[in-house]
């Protein structure tokens, strides 16, 4: 039992072995934005939220210029009063010019840094990324606001699921290109998701307008949540259909390996109807109309991707996993251009609301 005092002493000594970090004395980076300034020069902004005792939040923005991402961080360290830590990062926004030139160098530091989680969001911006961080979007603070903005649109609306992990997974898979939501600042207090940036490798190649996002989510997202869509069946009768769940299936046609069969299944409900009476016949009509529309719109999308030579859906990867010993490097570029699609949508309307 002589050992016990020795052990206690030992434990006390051990506590001094690493640098302490007191939560009130560090600055937690919660959002970051990067813009291209000149050739090979970036402007970086980091947002730190200060939580005051009366529960209000102050958004502190630090901006600096540099030619390397490391430079940016080091320069910003010189402006902050506390030690800057990255563990609480929620969102990173890349300016449109930067996204056009490639963002992988920035994302690389994110996967290298052990303290950055996989769940935080990446986004591109329409215009300057910096300006978005400089806004003021209410009492929850800028970074929380932007995070929940994207999060609820993924869970409930038509933004396909995305985060750092999914971006990296898609980026590092042969035969698939990543995508990111695009943010646009409307004015000092408002910001919106204005579309979806589709990448070729790590460079932004095309911005999908937000009207098409519903169809893109049907194609790209495995578990599509609730997206809603307006159906116009003529004679001033309009209805809003909300998809409760949707599923998609991709198959290479057995007879013709250069044809992709896409099966989209939607179970939905009618939220809004402007006609006089909603009969079963009209419900069927709405479903048919929606099916048609999905088939046409999705076909337009995949054809467009093919023309742009981007592959956010992952047709290349589909080839790799469906065809044994497929020589991706050699054949894919040619095969993609010869690919044909067949889309089959199946819409079933389960409920029409609480009134008849």
């Amino acid at each position, binding site marked *: 039992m002589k050992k016990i005092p020795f*052990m206690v002493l030992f434990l006390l000594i*051990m506590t001094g072995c690493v640098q302490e970090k007191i939560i009130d004395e560090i600055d937690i980076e919660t959002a970051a934005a990067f813009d291209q300034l000149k050739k090979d020069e970036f402007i970086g902004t980091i947002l730190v939220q200060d939580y005051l005792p009366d529960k209000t939040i102050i958004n502190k923005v630090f901006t600096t210029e540099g030619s390397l991402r490391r430079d940016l961080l080091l320069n910003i360290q010189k402006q902050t009063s506390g030690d800057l830590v990255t563990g609480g990062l929620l969102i990173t926004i890349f300016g449109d010019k930067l996204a056009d030139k490639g963002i992988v160098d920035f994302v690389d530091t994110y996967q290298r840094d052990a303290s950055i989680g996989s*769940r935080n969001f990446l986004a591109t911006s329409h215009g300057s990324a910096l300006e978005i961080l400089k806004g003021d979007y209410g009492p929850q603070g800028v970074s929380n606001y932007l995070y929940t903005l994207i999060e609820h649109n993924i869970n409930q609306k038509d933004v396909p699921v995305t985060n750092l*992990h999914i971006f990296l*997974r*898609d980026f590092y*898979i042969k035969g698939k290109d990543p995508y990111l939501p695009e943010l646009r600042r409307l004015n000092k207090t408002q910001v919106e998701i204005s579309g979806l940036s589709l990448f070729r490798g790590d460079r932004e190649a095309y911005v999908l307008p937000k009207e098409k996002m519903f169809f893109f989510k049907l194609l790209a997202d495995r578990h599509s949540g609730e997206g809603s869509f307006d159906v116009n069946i003529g004679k001033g009768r309009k209805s809003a259909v909300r998809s409760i769940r949707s599923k998609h299936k991709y198959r290479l046609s057995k007879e013709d390996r250069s044809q992709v069969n896409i099966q989209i299944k939607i179970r939905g409900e009618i939220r809004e109807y402007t006609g006089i009476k909603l009969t079963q016949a009209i419900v069927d009509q709405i479903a048919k109309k929606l099916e048609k529309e999905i088939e046409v719109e999705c076909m337009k999308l995949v054809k467009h991707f093919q023309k742009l030579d981007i592959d956010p859906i992952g047709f290349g990867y589909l080839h790799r996993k469906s065809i044994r010993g497929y020589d991706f490097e050699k054949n894919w570029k040619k095969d993609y251009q010869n690919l044909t699609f067949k889309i089959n949508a199946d819409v079933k309307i389960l409920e029409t609301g609480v009134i008849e």
Partner: protein
Amino acid sequence: MQEQIPEEFKISPSLVFYMVASMQIGIGILGYQRSVTKYAYQDAWISVLLAGALLHIIVWMIYKIAEEVNGDIVTAHEYVVGKLVGKTISSLFIVYFFIYALTVLRSYIEVIQVWMFPEVSTFWFTFAFMVLCIYIIYGGFRVVVGIAFFGLVIPSYLFLTFGYNIKYADFSHLLPIFDTSIKNIILGSYQMSLTFIGFEIILFFYPFIKEPQKSKKWAHFALLTSTLLYTGLMILAIAYFSELKIEKSIWVTLTMWKIVQLPFVERFEYIGIASWNLVILPNVCVSIWVASRLIKRIFHLKHRNGVIIIALFMLIIISFIDTREKINVLNNFTGKMGFGFTFIYIPLLYICIMIAKKVKEK
């Protein structure tokens, strides 16, 4: 020839399960996926299963050897090549287990330094860890086994956290199955060496098992458990990441924790890595115990002094291994050494014992 172990120092047969499983599950599991997928791609899980299946044969051989000589490996060596040469060969295994403990401990400290606290001093952490190990080993073999038990049971809750990864997993990444050549699958299995070794300790603590006959099924069961665990994590990693991303990550299993989100903790890795200390503890303790027991058996040095000597050596040598490069070399060496011992030396010893038996019978 074999000293008799008093009944009160022996362990019941079922505890062999915890000894073997906790010794196997250690540092390799944090990042084995990478080296296996390098060869076997999406079929890497087949490599893991194959390696696990082959090990059952080795465990069977280990029991055969131990039963034949009714003792541990030192007795077996003496049985085959006589006292002097036998002891010389046996003393090599002091180094084997020393290096094993060194690899585990240094790799764990590296994880702490990269993932949590870059400032942690290797020397002082090892010092603290060694004091703990000495304390445990002084308690006797049964305490060491107890640590093995807790080192497996307490951290087992960690495996629930991989549920977060299933949500993001796409199991179609496993397709097409059997697209890799047999050669590459076997090469992948070979890469599992470092992760799988540890079960060979049966050959060293065999005399301590009560009714060793009954412990056989537990040893095989432990092997099955770790094989299934490794296969499951392999499948999950392939489904969760894409192949190039696995290739880039050094600690695939740890990177998988980055997606975990709990209301009370922002970065779950901190809890995971801290809990892993408990997984590492039996690895280091048992191997130091084995090494010091070998010292006692071969050089007739007091067990307690042997432990101190090993701890001192550990403290000196661990400070020299300071870069990722050196740690990697050490890991690869230990993997190769483990492969050599389990897959080459044990079958060889088994054959020798069988021959020696035939000769002696005549």
